[in-house]
């Protein structure tokens, strides 16, 4: 007999989780460990190093950390994550959830449908849509703004992909925050209103403390996904001159275009490490929250 609600018990719980764990183990952990090994070699897809890769130890890591392009790429990725995941997706997603929290009817349905469509349309299609939108000559945006010839993707590549990714991923945050806001007791908001609190004061004093957990989940997942999002490659290909070469694009260029798989694997692990730092920072914040019993 067991103490959990469904009477699963450890044994059956393991049996329930096992199929997923086996699949994850085979198609995730195993390749991951292999990738770690590759990261220690000078393995290439072709050439002499493909036939006979040499162990280079931490050499790839040293090379990456010493590579200006890698460091630039880290910095661009930080901008990308901060701009599109944290400010863009989480910010806009929250704003939408907040505005629509007590709205019903067609307006909400249309806005939600559009936001969700941007999320579920296939990446390759979406890339075309944005290239068409931002094109220098025939782009719809230039036609609309009356700025023919404005080369958005060239003059503001980061801004373009940040706006793009905001467009692309806001749906997830919007849904999550909509659910979160339903958990904020209306009586708390109303207590603040009765005390005369402004909308901003209500957000600060009532809403944010309440949905901190959701904010953390959201920021964690969206930054993780944004960190590893390859779709911007389809729009700017990392250009011009690497000015939008975020880490996934960097890895793609290194591993696929240049065929340096060992080095690419090492960089992937560095990305993992950076992600880990992010996650730990979030969890740290979370632990701070947990010291406050709710």
């Amino acid at each position: 007999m067991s103490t959990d609600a469904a009477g699963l018990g450890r044994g059956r719980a393991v049996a329930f989780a096992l199929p997923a764990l086996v699949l994850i183990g085979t198609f995730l952990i195993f390749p991951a460990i292999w990738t770690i090994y590759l990261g220690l070699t000078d393995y290439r897809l072709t050439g002499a190093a493909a036939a006979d890769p040499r162990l280079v130890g931490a050499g790839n890591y040293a090379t990456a950390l010493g590579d200006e392009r890698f460091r630039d790429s880290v910095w661009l990725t930080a901008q990308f994550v901060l701009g599109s995941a944290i400010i863009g997706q989480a910010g806009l997603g929250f704003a939408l959830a907040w505005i629509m929290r007590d709205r019903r009817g067609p307006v909400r349905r249309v806005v939600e449908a559009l936001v969700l469509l941007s999320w579920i349309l296939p990446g390759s299609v979406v890339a075309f849509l944005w290239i068409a939108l931002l094109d220098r000559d025939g782009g719809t945006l230039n036609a609309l703004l009356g700025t023919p010839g404005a080369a958005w993707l060239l003059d503001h590549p980061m801004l373009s992909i940040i706006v793009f990714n905001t467009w692309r991923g806001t749906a997830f945050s919007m849904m999550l925050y909509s659910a979160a806001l339903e958990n904020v007791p209306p009586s708390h908001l109303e207590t603040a209103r009765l005390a005369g609190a402004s909308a901003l004061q209500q957000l600060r004093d009532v809403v944010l403390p309440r949905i901190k957990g959701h904010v953390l989940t959201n920021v964690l997942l969206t930054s993780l996904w944004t960190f590893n999002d390859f779709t911007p490659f389809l729009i700017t290909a990392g250009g011009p001159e690497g000015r939008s070469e975020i880490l996934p694009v960097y890895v793609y260029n290194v591993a696929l275009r240049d065929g340096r798989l060992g080095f690419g694997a090492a960089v992937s692990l560095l990305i993992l490490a950076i992600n880990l730092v992010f996650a730990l920072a979030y969890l740290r914040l979370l632990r701070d929250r947990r010291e406050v019993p709710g």
Partner: protein
Amino acid sequence: GEEGITLTITANAISGGKNAAGAEWIKQWVIPRFEAAQKAAGHEVRVLFQPNGVGDEQYKTKVALDLKSRTGADVIDLDGIWVGEFAQAGYLKPLTELGGTAVETWEGWKQIPQAVQGLGIFEGKKYGLPQGTDGRVLYYNRELFGRAGLPEPWQPRSWQEILDAGAALKRLPGVTPIQINAGTAMGEATTMQGALPLLAGTGTEIYTGGRWAGSSQAVKDVLEFYRQIYSGGLGDPKLQQEAKGRDKSFAEFADGRIGILAEGDYFWRSVIDPKTGVAPMAERDRVVGYARIPARRPGAGVRGQDFVSLSGGAVRVLNPFSKHPRQAWELLSFMHSAEAVKAELAGAARVTSRSDVNAEVLAADPMLRFVSEEILPITVYRPGLAVYPQVSAALQEATADIVSGRPVQEAAAAYRAKVEGLVGGSGNVAD
């Protein structure tokens, strides 16, 4: 023994998409005829075609992964530039090791000029059969030349004459005088149509005698030429940065908005062809002129030439892990027979690897005859080594630097530093 053999061909071609004609040729012509011929000879052979329709890098990756795991098609299409790195990785073996004596005695060798055979040769061994080759020229718009008061036909003899023509064209409103590919967005097109022909025009090759060109005067001269174009208002720097810049340059040329464009003969055949081109020019034959790419100064080119060019091309190789290498060779050589090559062209004109076919099919197209007769003798091929793509990328980055206004000296130094890193130290870099 040979009952029920299956052979597979793969290529980056697919019906209804990329290189559709090539795919159709394999499916409609090669497979039925080869199967019939084998049947006639008493062999039961089935041939399958595995089409692809993706970017070159992805195709290359897939083929490499297949070969790495000792699987894959028996006859494989490859870019000639990949032969070296594939061979080094053990993904390819010399044809003679696979096809046996039949290889040596194949009738086709006699028809393929030695220079063109080089496409499939690595370290002196033949790994593949070249499918065809091409050459780079300067295209110019005769109408614009006329309006700018420039002579015509036009054949510049030095870089300066190109710049002069550009200066004249600059006076026409809405016209970009010169488009020489630069920057990383253009990818290999920058190296093929820009940096390497120019480098050849200074008498240097990117890789000679086991060493890679560094920040030599030659490289600086090339970069200086770029600088003169892009900071002198003769080229459109934006075009060099867009992801789809090359396509756009095609469209602009077809539109009469570019004066001079360095491109391969592919541009003539497939881009501005009045009927089948992607950016068709109805008056191509009347409006578009072409000229050889001059050396920096007369006589300053490689081998002391006045004019230079660069060539590339695809090859077909045998899979070293094929279960039926001899039959695969039969299939491969069948695909390179004069009859097959002619069928592949399907009436179109293109510079093939076979002289006998060229003589026949190029008769009607003066431009391609020009390439075959005037350009191929002076052309240069790229080194088929694994690091070449990265050196090429470094070169592209150097041109990108110039386009975005960085001084020649700095761009050259940065390029040299990168190359040293790539090729394993300064010992492998010239100057």
